[in-house]
Every structure is written in structure tokens, then in C-alpha cells.
């Protein structure tokens, strides 16, 4: 799947986009976060506080416990601040 990062998540992780195939046991964004956090470094810093993380699956806002399904694109970002 394609994983996108925005705002301070992108800065802490050091890239805005990557392609990653998570283990089959990963079925929700929250589980994917736990998996990515294990990489340590910028990932551990970016995902340190799950309360500040929002996500979109297939460009639709979803809760962190939503099913990933066959999502081709998932994005992680802080709460939005436009306007």
C-alpha cells in the first residue's frame, strides 16, 4: 500500500510518501501505526501520541480502528487547520 504523511508527521518521518506491505495481521490504521512505530527514530517520534493522529483511507477520513480492507492509499496527519 501507499502511505502518505502530512504536516509534522511528514517532517518527523523525513518523507511524505512510501510504499509498504504490512504483515497480514495488520488490519486497522492503529495496528499499522504500531507496526511503523517499531522502526524507531522519526517514526517513533511521529507516532508517539496517537491522540494527535488522524487518518484517511482511500482519501476518506476514517477512525484509527476502521478496517484497512484492500486500501491502496492510507494517509496519516495531525488534525486539520485550514481556512
Amino acid at each position, binding site marked *: 500500500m501507499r502511505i502518505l504523511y502530512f*504536516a509534522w508527521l511528514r517532517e518527523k518521518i523525513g518523507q511524505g510518501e512510501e510504499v509498504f506491505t504490512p504483515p497480514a495481521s495488520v488490519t486497522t490504521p492503529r495496528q499499522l501505526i504500531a507496526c511503523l512505530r517499531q522502526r524507531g527514530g522519526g517514526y517513533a517520534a511521529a507516532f508517539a501520541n496517537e491522540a494527535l493522529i488522524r487518518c*484517511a483511507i482511500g482519501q476518506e477520513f476514517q477512525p484509527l480502528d476502521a478496517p484497512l480492507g484492500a486500501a491502496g492509499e492510507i*494517509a496519516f496527519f*495531525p*488534525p*486539520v*487547520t*485550514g481556512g
Partner: protein
Amino acid sequence: MRKIAVQPGDFDANAELAALSANAGGVASFIGVVRGDAGGRALAALRLEHYPGMTEKALERLAEAAEARWALSGCTIIHRIGRLTPGQNIVLVATSSRHRADALAATAYLIDQLKTSAPFWKAEEFADGTAHWVEARESDETAAKAWL
């Protein structure tokens, strides 16, 4: 008539409002502008980032919701991205209708919803070179939910 745009460049508010006024009884608008200060410090610029693709879809959906709820003859949302300095335009929301109540309410609804449901992020850049990401405000969340 619906117009949605996400762009680095400025918009011509007068031209956008003139386009909406055709076949309307009234036009309501909101323009968001970069403030000159943040948290008591002079601001050098705002940097606006977005999620290309998702942003446009989210704005289209907001416009659809406003059109379903109020009797609008037109709806325009233009949001800028990139580095913007104090006094520069950030966003234009404008709607037109036969009677004022629809356009006024729809415009307020759209800017309230845009702040909490379109994937934009702002970073504040200060004169001393430091920068930080703006945190979401609970008051924005409250304003958006009040329309539900």
C-alpha cells in the same frame, strides 16, 4: 454554478463575486486573510500544506451539502496553498441565492465545515526563522458541530 479551486496563486475576489451575482438576488462571502501576529509574536508568513486529490473531493462534498441544504444559485470555494505573507488572502467562500438568508447561512456553514473537514495544515513562520505547526482549535470543532 459551482467553482472549487486549490491554488498557490491569489484570487480576484471582485471577479469571483461578479460571476456569482448573475441570476442571483444576493451574494454572501467570507475572505480569510493572513494575520500579522500569532500568540503575541510578529508573523513572517503562513505555510499551507494540503492533501492533493482528497482536498478537492472534500471541498466538492461540502459544496454539495450546502447546495442540498440551502437554495443556492452559485457556490465558490478557493483555497490557497504555499507560503503566504500577512495581509494576503488565504481562502474565499462565496455563495449566491435569490434571498439573503440562504447565501448568508451557507457561507457561514461552508467556512465552519472547511476548517474541520478539509485536509489543509498551517505552519506559522516567525521573523526569527522559527516555525511551528498550528494546532487545531476546539472552538472550530464546536462551530462545525453546531450545524449538525
